[in-house]
C-alpha cells in the first residue's frame, strides 16, 4: 500500500486540487512536482502520453490519470481510513453521477465565464449559474453532498470555490446572491484542514486567471 507517491501538479488547477485533498484526507505522504504547462516535462509526457495533462499520480512508478479516476484509485488503495466514496453501490453510483455532473456541466460553463466575452460570456454565465443551482438542489439541507460527512462529491466540487472570486469579477456575477447555500456549504468545507491547506488563495487565483484570460480574449 505504501510506496513512492508522486503527483504531477499545477497549483491553480482545480483538478489537481482534488487529488491533493484526497491525499491529505488519507494522510498520504507524497512528492509534488509542479509542472510548467507551457513547457511540459518529459516525465509528464511519458506518464500521460495521451492527454499530456495534469494531474497525474505516479504510484510505485505506475501512472494514474484523470482527477476523478485518481481519487477513486486513492480511495481503493488506501482503504483503511477516511473513505471518500460510500460503501453502498447505489450511493456510490449517485456520488459518481454528481462528480461527473461537475465535470460535464459546471466545469465547461465556468470556463466560458472567464475565457469569453459578449454574448458567449452571457450564455456561459447563465449556464454556470444554472449548474450551480442544480448542485444547490442536490445539496438540499444536508451539511455536505455526502450527507453528514465530507465525501467524493464535496471533494470534486469544492476545488472550484478557489476560482469563485475570478468568476465573480470577470463575469460580473454574485454567486452568494444567486446560490447562498453553495457558499454556506463551501465555507463549511473550508473548515476542514485538508481543504483549507489545499485550496490556494482566491485573489492569487484571480491574478492567475486575469493573465490566462489574455490568451483567450482580446480586450
Amino acid at each position, binding site marked *: 500500500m505504501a510506496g513512492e507517491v508522486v503527483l504531477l501538479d499545477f497549483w491553480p488547477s482545480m483538478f489537481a486540487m482534488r487529488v491533493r485533498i484526497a491525499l491529505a484526507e488519507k494522510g498520504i505522504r507524497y512528492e509534488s512536482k509542479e509542472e510548467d504547462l507551457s513547457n511540459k516535462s518529459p516525465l509528464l509526457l511519458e506518464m500521460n502520453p*495521451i492527454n499530456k495533462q495534469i494531474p497525474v499520480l505516479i504510484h510505485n512508478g505506475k501512472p494514474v490519470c484523470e482527477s476523478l479516476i485518481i481519487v477513486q484509485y486513492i480511495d*481503493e488503495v488506501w482503504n483503511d481510513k477516511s473513505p471518500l466514496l460510500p460503501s453502498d453501490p447505489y450511493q456510490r453510483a449517485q456520488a459518481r453521477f454528481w462528480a461527473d455532473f461537475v465535470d460535464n456541466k459546471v466545469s465547461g460553463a465556468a470556463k466560458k465565464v472567464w475565457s469569453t466575452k459578449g454574448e458567449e460570456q452571457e450564455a456561459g454565465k447563465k449556464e454556470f449559474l444554472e449548474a450551480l443551482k442544480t448542485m444547490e438542489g442536490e445539496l438540499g439541507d444536508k451539511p455536505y453532498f455526502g450527507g453528514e460527512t465530507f465525501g467524493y462529491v464535496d471533494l470534486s466540487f469544492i476545488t472550484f470555490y478557489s476560482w469563485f472570486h475570478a468568476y465573480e469579477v470577470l463575469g460580473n456575477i454574485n454567486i452568494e446572491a444567486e446560490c447562498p447555500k453553495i457558499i454556506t456549504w463551501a465555507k463549511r468545507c473550508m473548515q476542514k484542514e485538508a481543504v483549507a491547506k489545499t485550496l490556494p488563495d482566491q485573489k492569487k487565483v484571480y491574478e492567475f486567471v486575469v493573465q490566462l484570460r489574455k490568451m483567450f480574449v482580446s480586450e
Partner: protein
Amino acid sequence: MAELKLFRTWSSPFALRVVWALNLKGIQYDTIFEDLSNKSSLLLQYNPIYKKVPVLVHNGKPLVESLLILEYIDETWKQTPLLPEDPSERATARFWAKFGDDKVMLSVWNVFIKQGKDQEEAIVTAQENLGFIERQLSGKKFFNGETIGFVDLAFGWLANLLSIWEEICGVTLIDHEKFPMLSEWIQNFAGAPIIKESWPPRDKLITKNQALLEVYTSKEAPK
C-alpha cells in the same frame, strides 16, 4: 427476485452496453423501449437532468449514464466481473473507457460528417486516437484479457457502428494493415454469442445512420 427495468432505444449504443452487461451476468430484466421524440413521463422522472437513455431502475431506484450503470451492475452482481480487481488495472480500465467516450467517438464521427480537407484532418486525428487503442490491445484477445470486460463493452460501438458508417460513406478507417489488433478485436467481440445476439438489425441501423449523417454533413458543409 429484484425488480429490474431498462429504459432504452432499439439503436442506442450506450444502452447496448447495459444490455450486454446484464446478459453477460445472466441477470433477468424488463425492457422499456423509448421513443426519444416523445419521451415517456417515467423517463423524464427517472432522468430529469439529462433526459436520456439508458436508465436502469433497480427496485424503483434509477441509475443513469451507461458507464456508471456498468460499475453499479458490477458491484451489485459479482458473477462474471467486468472490471479487474487490482486498483491500478481498474484505474486503467476507467481511463480507456473515458478516453473512448470523450475523444475517440467524436473524432471518429467527425470523419464521416466532414468533407474535403476537414475530413483529411479528421482522419488523422481519429487514426491517432485509434493508434493509442491498438497499442493498448497489444496482443490480448480482449481489452480485459481472455474475457470481455468493461473496456470492451465501452468500445463495443467500434465493432458495428463504425462498419456501418464506413459502408455508408465509402471511407475505411480501420484497415487490417494499419490496425491488425483492433481488426481482430472487432472480429472476436462481434462474434461472441452474448454480444452477437443483441446487435440491433443492421438494415435498420443503416437507414437510420444514413439519415443522421445527411443531417450532420449538411450542417458541416461550407455555406
